[in-house]
């Protein structure tokens, strides 16, 4: 019998809570509330239905920005991976846009498009599309020439190569790109909502700060972390593990 190797990952969250409790005991509750005070705040938000409203607003913006970024990144990254001239052309642009924190675009976007869903979505799009395009491009470049050659000598035409070799061979990188894009988008979303929104989790945090409600701020932070963690561990890690298994050896 083999005992599973000890994994101390379970201890990290309780440890964080302990540190929180210890720190909070040194401050008055209106500065740094205890976890249970934040939990009570959460209950209040859930009961009057406004938590769901903020949560839904953020998730909808995230999904809209993320999915449009996926479509564009697949096209850009795929073309750049397959076609050297396009790669040469797009690489400096990619590096430039990746060097600029996406939130820096937010004020300009708000001036042009005004407050609201579209502006936030656009910031998320900008944050997610470039890192995803680069990851997909690297993935396509990483497809072994040998597999493509083998497929050609087996009679595959251009479209069959695309669908039966390039697509399955790039799935591991595609899933990695999705994970990166989602988390980049999520970070940008929270920041953008703090600057220019009238709802959403980011707005909730910044509003809490302005009215001096620390519990509300902390509740927002917990929600932001929770959603990112759930998506990461329940969705993206699983897909990635599935597609990487055959690459392992």
């Amino acid at each position, binding site marked *: 019998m083999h005992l599973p190797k000890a994994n101390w990952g379970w201890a990290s969250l309780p440890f964080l809570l302990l540190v929180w409790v210890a720190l909070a005991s040194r401050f008055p509750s209106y500065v740094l509330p205890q976890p249970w005070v934040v939990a009570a705040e959460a209950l209040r938000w859930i009961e009057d239905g406004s938590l769901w409203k903020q949560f839904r607003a953020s998730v909808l913006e995230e999904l809209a920005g993320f999915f449009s970024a996926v479509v564009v990144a697949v096209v850009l990254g795929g073309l750049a991976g397959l076609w050297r001239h396009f790669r040469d052309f797009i690489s400096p642009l990619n590096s430039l846009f990746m060097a600029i924190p996406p939130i820096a675009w937010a004020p300009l976007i708000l001036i042009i498009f005004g407050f609201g869903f579209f502006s936030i979505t656009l910031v998320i799009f900008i944050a997610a599309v470039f890192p995803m395009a680069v990851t997909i491009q690297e993935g396509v470049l990483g497809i072994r020439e040998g597999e493509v*050659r*083998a*497929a*050609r*000598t*087996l*009679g*595959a035409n251009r479209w069959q190569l695309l669908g*039966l070799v390039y697509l399955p061979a790039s799935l591991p990188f595609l899933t990695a790109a999705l994970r990166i894009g989602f988390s980049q988008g999520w970070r940008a979303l929270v920041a953008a909502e703090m600057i220019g929104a009238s709802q959403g989790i980011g707005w909730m945090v910044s509003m809490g700060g302005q009215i001096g409600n620390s519990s509300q701020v902390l509740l927002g932070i917990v929600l932001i972390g929770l959603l990112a963690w759930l998506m990461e561990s329940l969705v993206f890690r699983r897909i990635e593990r599935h597609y990487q298994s*055959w690459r392992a050896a």
Partner: protein
Amino acid sequence: MTALDSINDLTPLAMSQFQTQLAARSDALHIEAVDFAYANGHTVFSNLNLRARQGEFVAILGPSGCGKTTLLNLLSGFQKPQAGRLLVDGQPTRPELPALGYVFQSPQLFPWLSALENVRFGLRVAGDKNTVQQYEHAMHYLRLVGLENAAQRLPRQLSGGMQQRVALARTLALEPQVLLMDEPFAALDAISRNSMNEETLRLWAALGQTVLFITHDIDEAVFLADRVVVLNIAPGGIHSELAIDLPRPRTNRETRRLPAFLDYRNELMERIGDVMAQSSSLLEPTFG
């Protein structure tokens, strides 16, 4: 010789047409006056000529740097020569040519497909059989290489030798008339390589393709081939040819012990030595 003289009287166009027909009839593989140089001016072949009869097993032997890989790239149409023609089964070569099968140095299996699905790949893209027939056909070839029990395994779950067998089955399943084999067993240990050699001959005897087998292993070349073509170090092309007249079927236990086997081997070793000597005398001035 008289036939050749009369060919020379024809116009160039008529001559090339005539030769194409001739090639189509008699030669499975026809390399004619091929020149190839890389863009940096490095010449690999000039006026390379080589033919292989229908059903012939030809081994190409040469030290590294002799242009073996380039020869295969030209034959499979991945690279184009600056001059000359390469015909496979009478047709200008290209990678997708159904008459041409290519077994690579490393298996190049699709890692996301099972062994059976790998073998089915070519049948699937050809699409001229229904799915059930495709699976039956693929299974048949997997059985031929002795891997019917590994059909559902992924490539990473197979040993190197088994992977190369799957790759062989994948190529053979398309029933090409001409098979290019690029040092397919070079990565295997000596014992597996010898057994794969025997296996190759068994399949060849059963299926009767023309095989062009590239190797740097003299024993392997003698054991397998009807004819061994020795390449010069580039630029040079063909150094010489040697017909191997050993009885078939050949087996590791018997053939490799025949005095004639050892004679062929020594002769080829001599010639390879000659190739190396020539190349080092070519190189000397650059060092001096």
